[in-house]
C-alpha cells in the first residue's frame, strides 16, 4: 500500500498496468533485437497477452458489486472485466495474424500501437466518468488510425487510415460536444452524480436526451452502426487484414461496452426513449448491412458489411433493455469476436499466399487446402447463425430477449435478415467448395502462428456453440453489474 492506494485499486487496473509494461518490453526489444529476430516480437506480444489474460483471470477478478475507484474514474466490475479479457484475447490473436505479414510483422511500433489501443479499450470498458471515457476513446482510436494506414506505400491503406481519421475526428467532436453539454447542465462529469441529478428531476429530460443523441453519434461510429457506418467498408478493405479484424471485433465490442454502460447505468431514466431509437438503428443496420453485403466482390468489404449487420443484431439485445437482453449482447459479442477474428484470420492467411482478396479467387480453395476451407466453412456458418456453432446460440438469445420484451417485430426483422445473411455467406462457400480454378495444385500452407490462432478460434466457435452454459453465466454476471 502506497499512500492511499490500496491493493484493490491496483488489482482493478492490473490488466492495464501489465499491458503498459508489455508495451515497454516490446519497445525495448525492438531496439535490442536485430532485423532477423524481430519476427519474435509477434510471439512476444502474443505470449505476453496470453500471460496477462491468465494473470488477470487468476488475480484480478472483481467482486459481485460494481466498485468505484480512482476517484470515480474507474468502475471495477464484471462488465468491464469480461470485456477486458475479450480485448486482450483479440489483441493476442491479432498479433499472431500480423507477425507473418510483410512490412508489419517485424515492426516494433505495430505491436506497440496495438497494445496502446488495447489499453484504451480496457479503460473504455471500465470508465466511470465522462472525462475518462473521452480520453480512453481517444487512446483507443488514435493508434487505430495509424494502424489502418500502416502500409505507407499502399494507396488504399493510406486512404483507409486517413478516412478513418476524418470520420473518427468528426464523430468524436460531436460526441465531445454532447459531453460538454451534459457537464454544462449538470456541473459534474461523474456518472453516478449525473444519474442522481437526472433522477432528482433537476434537469429537463429533453435536454438530457438531446445531449445523449450527440453522444450516440460517437458510439455509433465505434460500433459502425447505420448511419455512422460509411467508413467501415473502405477502411476494412484498405487496412492491413489483421488490423481490419481487430477493428471489426475488439474495437466494436468496446463501443458496445460503453454504449451499454452509459445508456443503462448512467441514464436509466432515458431507457424508454432509447428502445425506440435503438430498435430503429438496429433495423436499419441489419437491413442495410445485409443488403449491401449481397453486392460485394471483395471478401473484406463483404465482411465489413456483414459486421455492420452484426452490430444490428447485437443492438436488438441492447434495445430490449433487460437483464436477458444485456446478457445476450455480451454473449453475442463473445461469439462474434471469436468468429470474426477467425474469418479475418482466414482471409489474411489466404491473401498472404494468393495476394488477392477477391471472392472469385477463392475458387478451388477446398481442393488447395481442405483444412482451411473447412475452417472457413465453420467461421462463415457461425456468422450465418448455424448450429452447432456459436453464432446460432448467440442469435437465439438476442431474439429471445426481443420476444421477451414484446418486440416480436424486431425479432422477425432479425430472423428475416439472417436469411439474407445466410445467402451471401453461402455464396462465398459455394465459390470455395464448388468452383474450379487453375491454381488448384497450389496448396495454401498455414504458417505456425496462423495454425495456432485459427485452431484456437475455431475450437472456440464450436465449444461456445455446444457447451454454452459457462459462457452464458459469464455474460450473466457481466450484465448483472448494470442492474
Amino acid at each position: 500500500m502506497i499512500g492511499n492506494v490500496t491493493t484493490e485499486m491496483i488489482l482493478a487496473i492490473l490488466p492495464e498496468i501489465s499491458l503498459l509494461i508489455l508495451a515497454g518490453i516490446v519497445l525495448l526489444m525492438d531496439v535490442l533485437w536485430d532485423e532477423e529476430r524481430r519476427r519474435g516480437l509477434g510471439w512476444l506480444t502474443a505470449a505476453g497477452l496470453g500471460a496477462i489474460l491468465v494473470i488477470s483471470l487468476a488475480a484480478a477478478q472483481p467482486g459481485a458489486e460494481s466498485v468505484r475507484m480512482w476517484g470515480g474514474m474507474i468502475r471495477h466490475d464484471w462488465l468491464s472485466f469480461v470485456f477486458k479479457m475479450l480485448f486482450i484475447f483479440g489483441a493476442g490473436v491479432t498479433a499472431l495474424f500480423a507477425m507473418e505479414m510483410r512490412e508489419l510483422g517485424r515492426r516494433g511500433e505495430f505491436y506497440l500501437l496495438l497494445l496502446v489501443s488495447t489499453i484504451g479499450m480496457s479503460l473504455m470498458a471500465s470508465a466511470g466518468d465522462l472525462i475518462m471515457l473521452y480520453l480512453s476513446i481517444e487512446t483507443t482510436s488514435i493508434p487505430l488510425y495509424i494502424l489502418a494506414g500502416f502500409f505507407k506505400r499502399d494507396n488504399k491503406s493510406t486512404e483507409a487510415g486517413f478516412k478513418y481519421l476524418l470520420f473518427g475526428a468528426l464523430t468524436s467532436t460531436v460526441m465531445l460536444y454532447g459531453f460538454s453539454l451534459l457537464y454544462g447542465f449538470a456541473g459534474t462529469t461523474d456518472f453516478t452524480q449525473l444519474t442522481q441529478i437526472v433522477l432528482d428531476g433537476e434537469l429537463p429530460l429533453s435536454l438530457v436526451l438531446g445531449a445523449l443523441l450527440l453522444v450516440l453519434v460517437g458510439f455509433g461510429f465505434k460500433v459502425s452502426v447505420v448511419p455512422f457506418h460509411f467508413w467501415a467498408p473502405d477502411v476494412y478493405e484498405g487496412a492491413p487484414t489483421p488490423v481490419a479484424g481487430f477493428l471489426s471485433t475488439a474495437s466494436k465490442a468496446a463501443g458496445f461496452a460503453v454504449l451499454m454502460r452509459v445508456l443503462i447505468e448512467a441514464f436509466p431514466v432515458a431507457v424508454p426513449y432509447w428502445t425506440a431509437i435503438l430498435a430503429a438503428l438496429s433495423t436499419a443496420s441489419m437491413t442495410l448491412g445485409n443488403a449491401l453485403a449481397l453486392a460485394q466482390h471483395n471478401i473484406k468489404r463483404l465482411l465489413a458489411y456483414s459486421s455492420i449487420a452484426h452490430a444490428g443484431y447485437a443492438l436488438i439485445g441492447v434495445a430490449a433493455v433487460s437483464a436477458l437482453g444485456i446478457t445476450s449482447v455480451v454473449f453475442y459479442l463473445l461469439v462474434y469476436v471469436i468468429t470474426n477474428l477467425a474469418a479475418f484470420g482466414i482471409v489474411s492467411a489466404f491473401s498472404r499466399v494468393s495476394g488477392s482478396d477477391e471472392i472469385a479467387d477463392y475458387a478451388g480453395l477446398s481442393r488447395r487446402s481442405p483444412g482451411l476451407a473447412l475452417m472457413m466453412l465453420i467461421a462463415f456458418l457461425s456468422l450465418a447463425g448455424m448450429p452447432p456453432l456459436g453464432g446460432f446460440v448467440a442469435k437465439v438469445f438476442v431474439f429471445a430477449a426481443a420476444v421477451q420484451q414484446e418486440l416480436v417485430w424486431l425479432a422477425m426483422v432479425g430472423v428475416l435478415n439472417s436469411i439474407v445473411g445466410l445467402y451471401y455467406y453461402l455464396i462465398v462457400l459455394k465459390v470455395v467448395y464448388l468452383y474450379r480454378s487453375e491454381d488448384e495444385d497450389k496448396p495454401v500452407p498455414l504458417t505456425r502462428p496462423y495454425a495456432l490462432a485459427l485452431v484456437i478460434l475455431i475450437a472456440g466457435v464450436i465449444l461456445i456453440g455446444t457447451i454454452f452454459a459457462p459462457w452464458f453465466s459469464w455474460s450473466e454476471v457481466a450484465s448483472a453489474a448494470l442492474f
Partner: protein
Amino acid sequence: MQFPILSIIVFTPITAAVLLQLIPSERMTEIRVTALAAAFFAMFLSAWVYFSYDAGAGGYQFVEKYDWLPVLGISYHVGVDGISAPLVLLTGVVMFTGVLISWGIDDRPREFFTFLFILATGVFGVFVALDLFGLFFFYEIAVFPMYLLIAIWGWKVTREYAAMKLTLYLFIGSVIALVGGLAMYFASGLNTFDMLALENANFSREFQIFWFPFVFFGFAVLGGIFPFHNWSPDGHVAAPTAVSMFHAGVLMKLGAFAALRVGIMLLPEGAQFHLPWIILLALVNVVYGAYIAMVQTDFKYVIGFSSVSHMGLVMIGFATLTREGFIGAGVQMFSHGIMTALFFAVVGMVYDRAHTREIPELGGFARAMPLVAVAFIIGGLVSMGMPGFSGFIAEFPIFMGLWNYRPWIAIVAAISIVITASYIIRIIGSVFFGDMPEQFVGHIGDVTALDKVALVVLCVIMVSVGVYPSVMVPIVESGVNGVLALLGGV
C-alpha cells in the same frame, strides 16, 4: 442410469464425420469403409431401439436428460415415442443404404460423407428431441449441409439454383418457427424449453390461434405443404442420389414430424382452429402433386412430385385429427420414406448408366438390370397403396379417418390413387420394358452388388410391414394415443 443408446445414435454420424477428417483424402477405400461401418452401426442401434420399444407401455422411452443451460431451462432431453421410433429406424436404414449407393462417388468422397453424416446427426437429433431448443438446434444442423451436398455433388444443370432455393426456403421456415417457439417459451412462464412441460402450459386460446400458423407452416415447409412445396422437386432432382434419398426419404418427414410435435402437440387448440382449412391445402398437395407428376417426362421429376403428393397424405392424416388419420400418417411417414428412397436409388442407377432421365428415351432396362426392375415395381405397388405392401397399411387408415371427417374430401383425395397408378405404370412400361433404344444395347451393365444389397433391404422392409402390419401399427398407435390425449381425446 441406463445405457444412453439414443445419444449414441445421434452422435455416431458426427463422430464418424470427425474421424473421416483424419483419413487422407486420397485414400478413398478407407473413407468409404469407415463411412459404411458408421452407417451400419447407426442402423443397427436404431433397429435395436425400434424393436425394444415397448408399445404396450407407450409414452417416451429410452429417455435421457441432462442440464444444458439450466438458467434458461434448456436441457439435453431425448426420448422416443411410438411416432418417432419408426422414424429413427427409417433414418438408420436410409443412411445405410445411402452410403451403399454412394460408393461410386469419386469427387472428394471424404467431404461428401462428412456433410452427409452431419445431416444425419441433425435428423436423428430432431426425431429424438424432447426439448424445444434441442429440436431447433438439430433441425438447423439438418438443413445447412443440404446446400453443400446439392451444390457440389448435384446435377450440374440446376444444382446451384436448386440448392440455394431449398436452403433459403427451409431456413425461412425454421427461423419463423423459432420465433414462435420463443413466444411459447415466454408465454408459458415456466422458464423451460422442455416440451413435456410445455404440453401442459395451458396457453390461452388466442395465443394458440395466433402462433399456430407460424409454427406449423414454418416446419411444414420442409414437409412440402402447398404452396410452399416449390423447393422440393427442384431440390430432389438436383441432388445426388444418396442426398435425394435422404432428402425425400427422411428430411421431408422431419418437417411433418416437427409440425406435429411442436405445432399440433404444443398448440392443440390452435390446431383444432386452423387444421380444417389446412386440410384443403394438403388436398391440393395430394391431387395436384400427383397430376404434375403424371405429366413430367423427366424420371426424377416424376418421383419428386410424387413425394409432394404422398407427403400431402401425411398432412391430411394429421389434419383429420382422428385416431385413424394419425396412425395412417405415422405409418405413411415411414412407408413413404423407404419407398421414395428406393425410387431415387433406382433413378440414380438408371441415370448413371443411361446418362439421361427422359422417359421417352429409355426402355427395356429390365433385361439389363432385372433386380432393379423388380425393386421398382415393388416400390410402385407401395406407392399405389396395394394391399400386401406398406403403402396400404398407411393409406387405408388415412382415408378411413378422412371419410369420418368429410367424405367428399376422401373422394377427391382418392383420385390421386388413380393418377399415381397411371404414372407408375407408365414408368414401368416405358423405362423397364419395351425395346431398349439402340444406343444403349450392349452398353448397359447390371448394378453392383452393393446397390443390390441396398435395394433388397428397402424392399424387404416394405413387404414386411405390408404383410405383417403388427410390426409397426401398435407402436405408432401407442404414440398416437399420446397425441390424442393432448387434443382432448378427440
